[in-house]
């Protein structure tokens, strides 16, 4: 186990993947193995048939083998992330597990989630002690999600539960309370990442339907998180689960000051309608919500970054993420060059160590 004082960089958002569906065969019953063999992996989140970089990944990660997903290259992660970026701990959120969570057959979804988690433990966590896993769980069915949290929540390298923004309900809804109770039992925060908005059984990604282009969808992401954030606050999730932490991965953070101010204003005027919301919304955010740095905001003028970090309480609420190996990857140097020196260590590691109890 790493000495906590020696952990300088925790990367909270890294995406690994299987190379081929056959990787999961040893972790499936014969029944579901035959189904996976016949129909292949569910791939249903692609509204735009487009992305950035090359096939959504850094174009310098293919190394001449264009048919191999860089997210499946264990050795590539070692070189270009752990070594080149001096990352001490990398938290894995599985690539292409999101489509599993828009399957309406929840038993099959649960089987594939279990297989993906078991495969990750065997082929990533057991091979290199620097990796941690945010569990993929079949969130369409909260009881099955709880089963998976209870099955693997005590594994020492399982440090969070991975949820995606696209759903039929906002995450403050009491339907999800059993999931948060299971997280509390195991000391696991929720790692919330965009995906699956407007896909499968989920509603359209905006109040007025679908955007036409990937660039629009890229810009729309903050509103996915804003919707869930207001839900968490006004449903009283943090009054019910006083230790629960929610990590917003790839949400952007330039919008956070505005949200805090507006939420506080709304709460002061409308508090009596939801009297179980006992604290200022910004207090809940400080205590329960953590934001990740990638894609790092580029204010104009650049000197505005100091104000932005002050206004969002970034010293306490912001954590480094690279999004490796995706095309909009940020190296840790971004923190060293764009963030005031006195809070760099908080953002690069300390905030993560206090957010994920099992890292400490």
């Amino acid at each position, binding site marked *: 186990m790493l000495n906590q004082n020696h952990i300088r960089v925790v990367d909270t958002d890294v995406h690994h993947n299987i190379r081929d569906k056959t990787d999961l065969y040893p972790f499936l019953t014969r029944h579901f193995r035959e189904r996976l063999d016949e129909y292949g992996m569910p791939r249903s989140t692609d509204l735009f048939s487009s992305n*950035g*970089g*090359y096939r959504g990944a*850094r*174009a*310098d*990660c293919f190394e001449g083998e264009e048919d191999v997903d860089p997210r499946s290259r264990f050795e590539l992660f070692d070189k270009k992330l752990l070594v080149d970026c001096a990352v001490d701990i990398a938290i894995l959120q599985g690539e292409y597990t999101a489509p599993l969570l828009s399957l309406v057959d929840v038993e099959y979804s649960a089987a594939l989630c279990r297989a993906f988690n078991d495969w990750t433990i065997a082929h990533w966590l057991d091979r290199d002690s620097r990796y941690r896993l945010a569990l993929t769980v079949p969130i369409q069915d909260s009881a099955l999600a709880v089963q998976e949290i209870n099955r693997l929540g005590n594994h020492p390298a399982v440090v969070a539960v991975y949820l995606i923004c696209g759903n039929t309900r906002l995450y403050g809804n009491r339907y999800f309370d059993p999931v948060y109770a299971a997280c509390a039992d195991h000391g696991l925060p929720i790692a919330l990442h965009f995906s699956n908005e407007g896909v499968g059984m989920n509603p359209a990604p905006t109040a007025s339907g679908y955007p036409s282009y990937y660039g629009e969808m890229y810009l729309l992401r903050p509103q996915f998180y804003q919707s869930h954030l207001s839900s968490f606050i006004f449903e009283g999730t943090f009054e019910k689960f006083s230790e629960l932490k929610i990590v917003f991965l790839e949400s952007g953070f330039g919008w956070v000051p505005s949200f805090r101010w507006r939420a506080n204003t709304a709460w002061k005027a409308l508090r009596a309608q939801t009297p179980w919301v006992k604290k200022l919304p910004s207090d809940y955010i400080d205590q329960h919500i953590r934001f990740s740095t990638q894609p790092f905001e580029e204010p104009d*003028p*650049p000197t505005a970054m100091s104000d932005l970090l002050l206004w969002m309480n970034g010293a306490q609420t912001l954590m480094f993420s690279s999004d490796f190996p995706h*095309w*909009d*990857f*940020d*190296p840790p*140097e*971004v923190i060293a060059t764009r963030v005031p020196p006195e809070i760099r260590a908080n953002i690069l590691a300390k905030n993560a160590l206090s957010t994920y109890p099992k890292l400490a």
Partner: protein
Amino acid sequence: MPYQPTQNSRDTAVRLPHVVCTVSELAAGQRVIFSFNGLSIGVFNVNGAYHALLNRCPHRGAPLCEGRLTASVTAPQPYSYSRDREGEILKCPWHGWEFDILTGRSVFMPEKIRVKAYPTTIEQSQQHPLIAKYDVSVIAHLVVVWLSK
């Protein structure tokens, strides 16, 4: 005749030739990336003409010269696509910033984010990052990049 260090007409820096490869090793549409004095530089053969760029994107430091070659993509009017200058645009492998290999200027903000006019000087500023462009010569069958001392 032996090659002598020469003076850049627009700069006082001494320029040194660095042999990168032979012409036959750098066909049209291909590139060679080499390191010298801690600098990584990419040399491109674009339709028979040679161009060299610093292999570091001014945005986030990505290995720019490992990016994909593409074209100038424009739209005469909304919802139309026009492609020309195939293979003359280099797209950064990370965040997709496009650069004109022939000039070193960015496609999206050519006046602010572009090559410095002095061929062997690398300059970057926080607000207006520049990418460095180098003079390339073909001497006999060798591709030579001129570097500042």
